[in-house]
């Protein structure tokens, strides 16, 4: 079965969803990603959905689950690049994705992840100082 690639970018993992995923592929991604967080010790996950033409309740649930599982494993998830038409449709569908942090694009998403790690690191510096 094909898989969606997961790239390591420093302390973060980057996933760019470029295909119209069928449901089993989405479940496989969830599992692959969880394993990668645990094996690499990644502190952040960036999911780029700018190629996605729709987000239905199944994909919405996948994003929510990934965010929740990452959190339990001490990593932050940011979803970037959601198209405006997708955002409008999502709300009408009834999905609010309250558990998922979003950013406009990859740069802003990385900045968000960095600021979150920095808060943690900042605390360390303070202690050392």
């Amino acid at each position, binding site marked *: 079965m094909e898989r969606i690639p997961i790239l390591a970018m420093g302390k973060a993992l980057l996933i760019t969803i470029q295909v119209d995923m*069928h449901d089993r592929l989405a479940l496989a991604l969830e599992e692959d990603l969880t394993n990668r967080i645990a094996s690499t010790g990644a502190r952040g996950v960036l999911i780029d959905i700018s190629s996605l033409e729709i987000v239905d309740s199944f994909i919405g*649930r996948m994003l929510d689950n990934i965010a929740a599982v990452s959190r339990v494993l001490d990593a932050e998830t940011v979803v970037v690049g959601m198209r405006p038409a997708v955002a409008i449709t999502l709300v*009408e569908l009834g999905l609010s994705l309250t558990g998922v942090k979003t950013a406009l694009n990859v740069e802003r998403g990385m900045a968000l992840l960095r600021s979150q790690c920095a808060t943690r690191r900042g605390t360390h510096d303070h202690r050392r100082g």
Partner: protein
Amino acid sequence: MTTAEGDVFAIRTSQDVVIVRQEVRARAVKAGLGLVDQTKIITAASELARNTLDYGGGGTVVMEAIEANGRRGVRLTFEDHGPGIADIELAMKDGYTSGQGLGLGLGGSRRLANEFFIESRIGEGTKVVITRWK
């Protein structure tokens, strides 16, 4: 109202659900629907195709290009011969699922379509029709 002859697609695997999304997209574009309307009908189709597969045990969708009062649109008819829905009102409720879903498929696709029709008989199957106009 005029109806071009409808195309029938089988829904037997989760890959078929992907094909349904792509075919609905092509028809929505052809009917001249704007980007948001395209997105809405594709999303609704995805929800209903998944229900046909997961709860109806597989089935079909008929896709029609329609026209009425000078407006064009897309009509989708999902049909299965699965177990049917005992309590349609309950099934339509946001958050109600008998499976692993979020329970947004039926309620959500009603909101995403301009017209929504559902019919189900225990032991016979389920039929859902949605229409989106330009």
